[in-house]
């Protein structure tokens, strides 16, 4: 059993606080992504879990045992570094074999494991080469193979596929997921590629500015972002935020009235661009379309709603002219309401 409990971890570099109290529980065999913009503290958190960095305060336990103070090698984990850290003076084969050699595995087992990992990552042709002649993407795959070869209970990966081309990345992603799932490996996967996080993860933790903003399944996070940041960060196009006046616990959108979890003042409507439908002219939410871009699979509209910037998606079968004003129907069950003051969303209506 290798569940991971991260309890209120803080980390300061001098006066700068990189992690401001992070708590997260990862179940045995679960695949959790840390998703967040550059510099939000993802690598720092991973390094603390690995034991390469000491937290300023807080506790981490793996498999029910606190690992604070334990050296990395006693934590039963493997890691893929953001900058690969593939040993330049060893062949690819010896790189992948490194962890097994340290465990004093016999040659037969080393060979078997290396070949398995190399096959998975498609690096067999380079096994006898030295890393400095390999491309970034090839080195990155060596780093992943090195971590997989030891079949760790816990695997930490810091943007392990960032340097691969789109096609290869898609393929690696699927294979990685299959392998880790069948091995029951508890995985923490750092990325700032949201499609990757959505596709791979059992759950996603969205990190922002040293804090976890939200933890949830990809669908939960997508449909009901906990904060304005999460909604804006996840989804392409990002969620639209439209501030509306509240009267008697209701807002008016076109002819319709929506009950909202606030009684007066303003409220922010969080609207996913693809949840709207085109309404008959003169009805629904009015959008001034500045640019209409037919994308093949869909039609992307950029413009404004109530003078606030907005992007929505309509089926490819619709035709909209640049400069046209159209009406949009909003599905009350698929919107998120947020407080205009602190950007936190109200709980989804049951």
């Amino acid at each position, binding site marked *: 059993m290798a569940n991971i409990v991260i309890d209120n971890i803080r980390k300061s570099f001098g006066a700068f606080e990189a992690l401001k109290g992070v708590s997260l529980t990862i179940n045995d065999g679960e695949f959790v992504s840390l998703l967040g913009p550059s510099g939000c503290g993802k690598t720092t958190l991973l390094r603390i879990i690995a034991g*390469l960095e000491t937290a300023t305060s807080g506790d981490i336990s793996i498999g029910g045992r606190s690992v604070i103070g334990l050296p*990395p090698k006693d934590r039963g984990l493997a*890691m893929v570094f953001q*900058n690969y*850290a593939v040993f*330049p003076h060893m062949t690819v084969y010896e790189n992948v074999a490194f962890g097994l050699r*340290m465990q004093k595995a016999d040659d037969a087992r080393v060979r078997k494991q290396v070949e398995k990992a190399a096959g998975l990552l498609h690096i067999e042709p380079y096994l006898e080469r030295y890393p400095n002649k390999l491309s970034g993407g090839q080195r990155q795959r060596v780093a992943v193979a090195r971590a997989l070869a030891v079949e760790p209970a816990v695997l930490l990966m810091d943007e392990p596929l960032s340097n691969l081309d789109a096609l290869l990345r898609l393929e690696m992603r699927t294979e990685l997921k299959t392998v880790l799932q069948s091995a029951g490996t508890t995985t923490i996967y750092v990325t700032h590629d949201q499609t990757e996080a959505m596709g791979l993860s059992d759950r996603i933790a969205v990190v922002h500015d040293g804090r976890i903003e939200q933890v949830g399944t990809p669908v939960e996070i997508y449909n009901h972002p906990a904060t304005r940041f999460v909604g804006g960060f996840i989804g392409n196009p990002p969620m639209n935020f439209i501030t509306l006046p509240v009267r008697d616990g209701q807002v008016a959108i076109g002819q319709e009235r929506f009950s909202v979890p606030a009684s007066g003042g303003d409220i922010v409507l969080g609207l996913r661009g693809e949840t709207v439908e085109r309404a008959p002219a003169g009805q629904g939410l009015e959008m001034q379309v500045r640019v209409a871009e037919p994308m093949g699979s869909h039609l992307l509209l950029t413009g404004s709603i109530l003078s606030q910037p907005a992007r929505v998606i309509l089926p490819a079968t619709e035709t909209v002219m640049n400069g046209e004003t159209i009406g949009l129907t909003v599905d009350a069950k698929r919107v998120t309401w947020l407080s205009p003051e602190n950007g936190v969303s109200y709980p989804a209506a049951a």
Partner: protein
Amino acid sequence: MTQNRSWIPYLLILPTVVFLGLLFIVPLVQTVWLAVSDNGVPSLANMQTMVSDINFGRSILNTFLLTLAVVPIQIAMALAMGTMVSKVNGGRETILWIWTIPLGISDLAAGMVWLSILQNTGYLNTLLFSMGLIERQTAWLTYQTPVALFIGIAIAEIWRGTAIVMIIIVAGLNQVPKEFKEAAEIFGASPWTRFTRITLPLIRPALQSALILRTVLAFEVFAVVYALGGRNFPVLVGEAYNWQNQNQNYGVAAAYAVLIMVISLAATLFYLKVVKVDPERLP
């Protein structure tokens, strides 16, 4: 445009080439000629005189023994010092600065420092006497105490010459990204394994430079030996000096100079071969 000016680099390099040519190659050729000639005719007479001198064998032996004793200790110490200082956060610059003080002292001055410690009335005897470990002044630097003399000279040389090795090693260590050691640590390598399997191979170029530089300098040891042992501890450069100044025999002095150069070249080639640096295996 640029093609027309291809002579500019040559012009800029010219002064250094002329300077080196005049002050290195010319004396080198002259020295070699001096060593293998006698009154303007080619001759091995100087070599014969050199080889048959009673101090010849001892000076070769002493020089080699000193090199063999000093260089490995210096490399090991420099590695240890470099590794330790890399773990220090505050005061790193100060520590390095103190460690490199001996670099700023001429080798003769370094010899004098150690003479003031090791001579009969020196600090060492004073200390030993005050602690009651010796009853009267003890001589350490005479021909009757060859082992103590050797150790004294070796210590002085180590004190004087380790800093330069350390600077090269520290520079090499600084070039090894910490992720390599961290990755090794994650995959279960002990500190010693990390040092031997990761750090050492990655600082090969620095190690090679340090070994070559330090060995060549060790074969040229003179002033420290001269200050501490005088003629009780003959070394190659000391013999060259004596033939040149005491005996006024420039030919034999030149023969020694050529011998030292040949040994240094051989040592350099040896290191280039043994501590091979394969650019393919560097970061």
